[in-house]
């Protein structure tokens, strides 16, 4: 098909980025730093709010300490929940610096905190109020649920939140299908919405303080707006604009297929080599789920290509896609790009299907880059796209090492890696592949004294 004839000459000559493609937006770390400072400022502000809402006498009165801890944990927990939502809203300025990977890592790291703080909030407030009213705990629970405004519904929200928290525990989450877990996880938005009202109706920092009420409401409305805009609006607009349609599905290796899509205005797609999209194939069985797959070659209007290895239900179904299937995309995402490079040259390491990200990243490297590429695979046929990679590297005066064999035969360690790449000290390391492989290379790089900011990785979690 068309792509073959378009791709082949290009990779053979390894031309640099086509003139027609727009220069992608460069990540600006200063913006991410400003975001961090703002996030910290919010945290400080809510802590101060909780403290100033309580006087010394109140604190010493019956139930005062518990009530204070209750409002502190409530405010901080809710604020952290707001940050969690912001992290997954994929604000492009932040995403370009941290990458989807980084955003999700922060999201995951932060996740246990808001849930446990909010559970503590409910507990402390109930204990505090019960002590103040000199009634039993269970009596107080009944009173709060029945007579306090918006508390019942907020409790329902907390219940949903706690249930999702339990399902997200690693041991349980592993047993769930990725799609199932993701759909359940969306109920978190509902839980947050349900708990919003009781904060404004009862929170000592909000009752009678129009300013804090306004700031709080604007922060949440703004966050909801960002989620709608970047998770929903932008993908819809992009998909409508480019109108991607499957043109061909091609076998690349055992279990590996390339999907070639045609689309309009692909010359205006702001993508950098190494980035990926969430792909939503609009068939009867697949339309409801979007999966991240790397673009395995920069767009060559009117073509765009992704390469997928069948590891799950979805990726196996990709191999059976029919030409003419319409495709919606969300992205591009990822900080695994040329912009991340800190040192003069690059070492690119890929295992298995991880080669896709390196393939498009290579296209972005200049002619004199002299990249060193390590391709790992158990069998020769596992090295998909090896010919394209070889052509791109040769044009850039680099070297490719194909490491075919079992892990024991092709051990990458402190001795073998420097032997393959003697000038490691002047190279960034880009590594892409299954999670275990990526971790081993990242650890190895650390042991070899490569600074962490010069190691870039993208793991394929299944």
């Amino acid at each position, binding site marked *: 098909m068309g792509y073959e004839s378009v791709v082949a000459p290009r990779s053979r000559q390894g031309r640099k980025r086509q003139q027609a493609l727009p220069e992608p937006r460069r990540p600006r*770390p200063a913006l*991410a*730093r400003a975001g*961090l*400072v*703002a*996030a*910290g*400022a*919010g*945290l*400080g*502000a809510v*802590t*101060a*709010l909780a*403290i*100033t809402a309580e*006087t*010394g*006498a*109140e604190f010493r*009165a019956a139930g*005062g300490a518990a009530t204070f801890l209750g409002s502190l944990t409530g405010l901080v927990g809710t604020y952290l929940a707001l940050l969690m939502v912001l992290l997954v809203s994929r604000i492009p300025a932040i995403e370009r*610096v*941290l990458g989807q990977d*980084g955003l999700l890592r922060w999201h995951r790291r932060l996740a246990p905190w808001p849930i446990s703080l909010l559970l503590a909030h409910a507990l402390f407030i109930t204990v505090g*109020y019960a002590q*103040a*009213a000199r009634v039993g705990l269970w009596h107080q629970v009944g*009173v709060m649920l029945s*007579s*306090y*405004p918006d508390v019942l519904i907020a409790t329902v929200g907390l219940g949903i939140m706690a249930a999702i928290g339990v399902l997200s525990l690693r041991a349980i989450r592993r047993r769930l299908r990725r799609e199932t877990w993701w759909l359940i996880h969306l109920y978190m938005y509902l839980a947050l919405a349900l708990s919003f009202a009781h904060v404004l*109706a*009862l929170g000592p920092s909000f*009752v*009678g303080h129009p300013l804090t009420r306004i700031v709080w409401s604007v922060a949440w409305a703004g966050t909801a707006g960002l989620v709608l805009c970047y998770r929903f609006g932008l993908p819809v607009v992009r998909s409508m604009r480019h109108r991607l349609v499957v043109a061909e599905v091609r076998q690349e290796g055992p279990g590996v297929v390339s999907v070639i899509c045609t689309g309009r205005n692909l010359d205006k797609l702001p993508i950098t080599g190494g980035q990926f999209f969430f792909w939503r194939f609009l068939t009867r069985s697949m339309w409801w789920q979007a999966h991240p797959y790397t673009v395995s070659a920069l767009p060559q209007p009117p073509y765009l290509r992704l390469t997928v290895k069948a590891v799950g239900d979805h990726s196996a179904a990709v191999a059976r896609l029919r030409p003419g299937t319409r495709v919606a995309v969300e992205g591009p995402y990822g900080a695994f790009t040329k912009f991340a490079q800190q040192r003069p040259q690059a070492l690119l390491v890929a295992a298995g299907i991880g080669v896709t990200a390196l393939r498009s990243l290579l296209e972005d490297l200049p002619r004199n880059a002299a990249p060193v590429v390590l391709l790992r695979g158990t069998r020769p046929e596992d090295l998909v796209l090896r010919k394209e990679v070889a052509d791109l590297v040769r044009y850039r005066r680099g070297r490719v090492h194909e490491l075919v064999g079992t892990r024991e035969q092709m051990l990458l360690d402190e001795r073998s890696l420097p032997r393959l790449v003697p000038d490691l000290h002047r190279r960034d390391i880009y590594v892409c592949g299954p999670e275990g492989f990526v971790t081993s290379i990242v650890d190895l790089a650390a042991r070899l004294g490569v600074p962490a*900011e010069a190691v870039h990785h993208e793991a394929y979690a299944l």
Partner: protein
Amino acid sequence: MRRAGWYLVTGAVAGFAGVLGFHVGGTAAPAVLGPPTRTPAASAAGSAPAATPSARAGGATGSARTAAGSVVQYGYGQLSVTVTVRGSQIVAVSVPVLHTIDQYSQQLAEQVIPMLRSEVLAAHGAQIHGVSGATYTSEAYARSIQSALDKLHVR
């Protein structure tokens, strides 16, 4: 990102200090509760029952007069205080109107109102210090009393 924690902590300190500064600046005003200004208009508008100017000068003599203070909304509910004076001496204070948005606020108000009552009786007016831990209730109480005193033309 490098030094992420550092940026986060800097922001947190700034945010904390900012809110604290704002709070201190905003409440540095009078430590003594009560409406900041008592306008003559308020007393003129009052429908005080038979408030005679001469009675104001007297001590604890003369007939007792009663006025209901305005209903004051505060964050957790609303209340109104009724004051009885003999001459210019406050002899009785009661709270006929008390609605709160939840039971906790009700309990708090019920604990606090007797304390406020004794403060008012001791201070002979609305210039009370209030009960800490019940700032809004105390403020509302003081304002309602002041409006009642205005109706009675008691200073």
